[in-house]
């Protein structure tokens, strides 16, 4: 039932010992964590960096003269530099810290697009977007009469840049597209989409919450206008994300949240705002999380990213091959070059039941609509089971998944 060859890919040795949680047992079985697309586990390096900072250098940032406040400010701004380098932004001033990927996209909706869109104006997006890259645009539909133009994906889940281009009309004010689908694993032709949109004068927001984890991102090369990332999927802490935006956009955007740190001057009658990125970071930011994010990006970058990608691709291919034996199981999403996410439907078995049986085998997978209901509708399913692979997964993990699926079939099929 399982594919034969089991040797680990020579190039990459999954650093399992860096992730203490992977040693735990679940229902008496060793944990097989295949839910990294929902959230990745955290390496010790991240936890240790946060703890060292909290026990040695912590204070609030920016407005303090004292030593710890200086140290904390430096650490926080170093995190901004780190994210800028990770995405190859022109400068750290193009990085705004947010509480997550969702807030990064909402920031664009509230502070950029809502001032630039009128009733009847259009937002182009794809049917495979995550709700976080759908609902903020639905707000503009509900509140300002914007029109959502949906670009379909092909049967294999791939997205055609020309299909996006064809949907961009004279009233299009933004193209909002994922860099990598969290359900199908599809990597989108982002650079071609940006080129097509720019040719018509339309800016592009890329949802990079998955893309930045698996692809090496160069926002300058992509020439994308906005790129959203989230810390917890990048092996970093919860509570932090970031928006990359071109400096010119940031300069022209109005504030989002109001409060400390984002102002220049406040009087009873007037308020003036700080320059970006501070303008968009009201209140005490996620300081300890920023330190964790720096450590996470350092950690991820300490590997040969291409080797990680090859490793994940190997796991995907290995799983894909094994699943061919199950003629009752249908994989959804087979785009060429897709990332290491595997969604499938099992005939006569509901995703929840499959996931529960896998859970009892120690295998953590997601079951449901994955915050992508329009995509579920597109493929005519209510939900799927999803296994997603990270740098710490192994072929043995895949074997356990396959055994669990066979068992589910025996019990429920």
């Amino acid at each position, binding site marked *: 039932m399982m594919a034969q060859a089991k040797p680990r890919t020579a190039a990459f040795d999954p650093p399992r010992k860096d992730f203490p949680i992977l040693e735990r047992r679940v229902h008496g079985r060793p944990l097989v964590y295949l839910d990294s697309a929902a959230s990745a586990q955290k390496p010790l390096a991240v936890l240790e960096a946060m703890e060292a900072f909290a026990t040695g250098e912590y204070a609030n940032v920016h407005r303090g003269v004292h030593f710890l406040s200086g140290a904390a400010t430096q650490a926080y701004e170093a995190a901004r530099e780190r994210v800028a380098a990770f995405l190859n932004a022109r400068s750290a001033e193009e990085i705004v810290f947010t509480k997550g990927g969702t807030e990064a996209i909402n920031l664009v909706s509230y502070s950029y697009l809502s001032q630039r869109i009128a009733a009847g104006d259009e937002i182009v997006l794809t049917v495979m977007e995550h709700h976080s890259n759908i609902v903020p645009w639905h707000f503009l539909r509900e509140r300002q009469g914007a029109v959502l133009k949906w670009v379909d994906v092909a049967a294999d889940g791939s997205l055609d840049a020309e299909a996006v281009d064809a949907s961009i009309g004279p009233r299009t004010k933004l193209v909002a597209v994922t860099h990598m689908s969290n359900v199908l694993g599809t990597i989108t032709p982002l650079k071609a989409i940006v080129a097509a949109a720019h040719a018509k004068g339309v800016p592009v927001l890329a949802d990079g919450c998955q893309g930045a984890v698996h692809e090496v991102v160069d926002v300058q090369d992509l020439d994308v206008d906005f790129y959203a990332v989230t810390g917890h999927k990048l092996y970093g802490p919860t509570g932090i994300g970031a928006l990359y935006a071109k400096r010119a956009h940031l300069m022209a955007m109005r504030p989002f949240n109001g409060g400390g740190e984002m102002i220049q001057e406040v009087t009873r009658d007037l308020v003036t705002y700080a320059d970006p990125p501070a303008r968009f970071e009201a209140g005490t930011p996620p300081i300890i999380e920023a330190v964790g994010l720096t450590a996470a990006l350092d950690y991820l970058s300490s590997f040969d990213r291409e080797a990680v990608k090859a490793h994940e691709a190997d796991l995907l291919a290995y799983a894909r091959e094994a699943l061919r034996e199950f003629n009752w199981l249908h994989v959804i999403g087979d785009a060429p070059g897709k990332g290491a996410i595997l969604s499938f439907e099992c005939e006569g*078995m509901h995703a*929840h*039941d499959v996931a529960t049986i896998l859970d*009892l085998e120690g295998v953590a997978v997601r079951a*449901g*609509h994955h915050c992508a209901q329009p995509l579920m509708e597109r493929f005519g399913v*209510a*939900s799927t089971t999803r296994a997603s692979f990270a740098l710490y997964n192994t072929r043995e993990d895949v074997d356990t998944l396959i055994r669990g699926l066979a068992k589910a079939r025996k*019990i*429920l099929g």
Partner: protein
Amino acid sequence: MTIDDSLRELYQEVILDHSRHPRHFGPLEHATHNGEGYNPLCGDRVKVHLAVDGEGRIADIKFEGRGCAISQASASLMTDMLAGRTLAEAEKLMDGFLHLVKGEDAGSLSEDDHERLNVMAGVSAFPMRVKCATLAWHTMKSALEGGTAAKTE
């Protein structure tokens, strides 16, 4: 209890049978009450229809929709057990069930009802699945209370 025991208890033959061959499945003409339930966690939906007669008795009951084995079996079992009851009896049964699947005391149930419902008791060991088991029941409760939409979340 070993893992395989929990599993066997959750997916007992009678549950699988209910889910594969749901009783009272389909639409109902001349329904006096209808309800629609939705579980946003998985996107599952259920519709319940019932006809209450002049004496306040559930004369006919049906359900539609699709979902996991647990939710389908639970809906099927529910229709089986509510058919023919008075509204007051139904109320008591439903409350008892909602306690039972959470692993709480379901003392209000008759011994016989308790025994029949007990096939669902294994769900209480799976907190993330309790909502699957209760969807149809919550939907029925809100249909009887005059609402039309319910959801478990």
